[in-house]
């Protein structure tokens, strides 16, 4: 990596035109990158040693992965009604929590944006509170909601809402803050109220970004929602985990296939929307 082309390389060779190789290389390299990579590798090795994984045992069981996949691929269409309704429930929970969080996110985003609230300590407090909410992974929130609200989709919606709202608050606040002060001031000078400044200037300017964030979050919410069942909430995750534990691989395989198809469709949809916005 040290073969940079320096001035001395050229000048010493320009006199006698011997066929010396000129090495190609980028001149201004970021010196930090190689150090960073070595550091990462060292940390990874230390981590692997610390984890102390019994690789031989895993390697010995690798043939079983093949068997499980073979069984999973033999779809059992007997329970398709159950799987279908579970998938619908999962999608509904994902969409519903997304919509609730969208409203909450806009409200809290407004409070957290410094140029709209204009009370600095208040925005900072809001932002740090939501940073905490965002730092705890969604399934933990759902687990807590399960404890508080009991089994059922309520816990799923409420748990997903916590994390999604926190995510939206941060990203919307960022979008709102990137709006230039001139726009806001121009409207304020004309005597427009705070609320109509928000609906007429802030929301339109941030609209395309709001759509992009929403699409991105739908993708995450669906896959989060698909796993919620595994920690005890309803939906397709519950179908997958229960059938896997009962060795009914055909049903589980079909449910996993459905999860894949829906996730893929959402991803495609999001890519299409993103292209259109740009």
């Amino acid at each position: 990596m040290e073969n940079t082309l320096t001035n001395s390389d050229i000048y010493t060779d320009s006199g006698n035109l011997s066929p010396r190789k000129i090495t190609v290389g980028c001149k201004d390299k970021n010196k930090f990158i190689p150090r960073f990579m070595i550091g990462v590798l060292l940390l990874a090795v230390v981590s692997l040693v610390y984890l102390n994984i019994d690789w031989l045992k895993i390697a010995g069981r690798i043939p079983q992965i093949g068997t499980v996949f073979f069984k999973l691929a033999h779809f059992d269409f007997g329970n398709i009604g159950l799987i279908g309704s579970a998938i619908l429930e999962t999608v509904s929970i994902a969409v519903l929590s997304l919509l609730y969080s969208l409203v909450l996110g806009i409200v809290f985003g407004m409070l957290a944006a410094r140029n709209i609230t204009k009370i600095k300590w208040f925005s900072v407090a809001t932002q740090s509170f939501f940073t905490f909410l965002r730092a705890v992974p969604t399934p933990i929130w759902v687990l807590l909601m399960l404890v508080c609200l009991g089994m059922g989709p309520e816990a799923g919606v409420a748990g997903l809402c916590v994390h999604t709202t926190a995510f939206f608050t941060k990203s919307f606040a960022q979008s709102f803050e990137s709006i230039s002060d001139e726009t806001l001031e121009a409207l304020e000078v004309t005597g427009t109220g705070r609320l109509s400044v928000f609906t007429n200037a802030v929301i339109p300017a941030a609209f395309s970004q709001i759509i992009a964030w929403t699409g991105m979050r739908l993708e995450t919410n669906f896959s989060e929602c698909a796993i919620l069942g595994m920690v005890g909430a309803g939906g397709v995750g519950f179908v997958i985990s229960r059938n896997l534990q009962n060795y009914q691989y055909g049903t589980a395989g079909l449910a996993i296939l459905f999860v894949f198809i829906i996730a893929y469709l959402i991803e495609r949809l999001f890519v299409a929307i993103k292209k259109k916005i740009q």
Partner: protein
Amino acid sequence: MNKKIPVIAKNQKIVYTAFIIVAIILFVLTSLYTKFNIFTLLKNSDEFWSFIVNDFLPPALPKASSIGGVLSSVLVTLALAMASTTVAAILAFFVALFGSEKISPFPKLAKYVRAVATFLRNIPALVWAFILFSSLGIGTGVGFVALCITSFAFMVRAFVETMDDVSNDSVESLLTVGAGFPQRVAQAIVPSCLSGFLSWFLYCIEVNIRASTIVGMVGGGGVGLTLFSYIKGFQYDVALSIILLIALMIIVVDRITAMLRKELQK
């Protein structure tokens, strides 16, 4: 005289109206299907708050004898994320070279490489963990493999996109002078895309810290398992302090990756 001037352009207004209508229709449909009613939730909120105030607050420390175990479980979670992301990144780098039509020595296969990555990526890590638990048994090693699979597939996509965005000119000019595949990789791809790759790697670390906590909950070990066992044992006040610990861990990691990202993009 008092004619109102519309502030929003007409075609924009149509987009907003359409968006709101779609949102309302979806809201009604999903509310009916899940029978989720915000008002019943609010009506029962007394119970909810009393639960939070009585059972969760104040956060309590676990027994002195188990504090060491909790801390080492945090280390397991961190190590799991670190090791699986690094291994996945190394694998993803080599596979991504074959996934981009511009660089791959077999351009026709590039599509299939990406298709496999798409398949692996769109199945959540926890589902992989469950599939692997049923074949490999429960343990940290299986959590490692499950995390590896999703972050590998994610990075293949991200790396291919980075390469497609950046490296057109330099790859083509090297191709015309007759550079071979390894030379093209070393002289065109690595210098121009490396910081992009590493930035995606850092993003993956952030994702995997969360994912390894979750995979731990269903049997992968680490702090997730500790939390799950406290919740199952109805020790909610201890569980709360572990949640705070998880939040702290994730915030610290996010801060570190943000710092490193800034440093990398200099």
